[in-house]
């Protein structure tokens, strides 16, 4: 009897400690990655953001324009930052199949040739990566829409692809988890399908990455 009790005690003690050490207590749900191999080596993966559904929030500074006014939640900047060339946006991120797989922050700052865009994308089950590229000109979205016939305060329908980088590609700048040590490039394409009278933008943002592990 005593031996059975001690054995139970030992198994309960050791089993609990082993569970605390080995059990994947906080693992995240992972969906299959939609990647493809590119011809010259590397891995291509696309991420999609649907507007306005996936927009979490954007700062309300002067640089925001339609992207601030159509945000689900406005981030109210302190007075010192209102006029700064600075825009912070937060999104949910989807895979190619349309499933939400992560969250992202986009920081745009600077003026003219020094404008830079930085994305931080976290996919909880896989890690995070950072993209950095030459930022779009201030008001680039509004300018492209005006060229396509949009007038402020009026609803607009159409299809316009807005270049949101001054060059064709940006760089994969850093990574964690399974993205750690990857190098590569990315493209960013905003395609706007309509804008309602309140300035709510409907469309998609596509991030296309090509990454490889340097030898």
């Amino acid at each position, binding site marked *: 009897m005593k031996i*059975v*009790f001690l054995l*139970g*005690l030992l198994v*309960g*003690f050791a089993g609990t400690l082993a569970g605390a050490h080995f059990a994947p207590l906080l693992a995240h749900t992972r969906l299959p990655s939609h990647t493809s191999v590119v011809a010259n080596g590397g891995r291509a993966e696309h991420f999609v953001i649907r507007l306005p559904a996936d927009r979490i929030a954007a700062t309300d500074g002067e640089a925001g324009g339609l992207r601030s006014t159509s945000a689900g939640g406005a981030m109210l900047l302190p007075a010192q930052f209102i006029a700064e060339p600075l825009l912070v946006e937060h999104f949910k991120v989807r895979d190619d199949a349309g499933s*939400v797989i992560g969250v992202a*922050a986009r920081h745009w700052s600077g003026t003219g040739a020094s404008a830079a865009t930085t994305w931080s994308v976290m996919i909880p089950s896989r890690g995070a990566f950072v993209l950095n590229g030459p930022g779009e000109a201030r008001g680039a979205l509004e300018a492209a829409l005006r060229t396509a016939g949009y007038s402020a305060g009026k609803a607009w329908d159409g299809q316009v692809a807005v270049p949101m980088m001054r060059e064709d590609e940006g760089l994969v*700048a850093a990574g964690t988890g399974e993205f750690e040590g990857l190098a590569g490039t990315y493209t960013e394409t905003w395609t706007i399908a309509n804008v309602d009278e309140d300035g709510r933008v409907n469309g998609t943002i596509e991030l296309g990455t090509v990454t490889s592990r340097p030898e």
Partner: protein
Amino acid sequence: MKYLFVAILGLVLGAAAAGVVLYFNPLAAKSASMPHATDRVLTYSLPDQVLEFALGDDARLFGQDAGDDGLWEETIDRSAVLALVLNDASGQPAALASRLLSTSAETDLLLRGVLVSDVWLVTIPNEGTLFVHADSNAWPFLKETLLPVWYLDRPWNGPSEYWPTVGPGADDSADVVGIAGSFDGRAGTAVERYEITALDPARKLALATGELHLNLPGPQVAVQAQ
């Protein structure tokens, strides 16, 4: 039957003893070494300097409402997105930070604690953008403050100070990568400190102040040292 009962009793007591060991386990309460005196320090206070906080359905430590814009999808329901204004040493707003947080699969209650992957994107206007990758240990805060005070109605003996950063750097500090502007190409380390200054479950009140200690070799860091 008697043997089965005794075995189960032993199992339960053994598991309870292990639970006590885990609760008081010093291995799960480590933190990064203290920051350097020359570090650049950016500060924040909660909730005053929170611009936005989107929370996963399973990440609501304080039982707060995640709202309609919450992160409800199963792939991100233990994640959070936090936007902060960071002040400089003079107390003036100096930077905007986006923090993407999620519980870490590296969590190990025996050896490392309850880990949170904490990814910062910090933009300092007219200077540039930094990426900070931190592993933060939430266990000391959960054990000493949140569980006893918020959920077990014990009196709070605060303020309580925490140094949650435990990696992934070699010295248990966070990794910093300069991404844009004058930080481009630079790398360094960071350590976070926060202090819970008020905690009242009855009024659903939690106040805190925090600091991000940045160590980026280069002239900008030295100029801004405390």
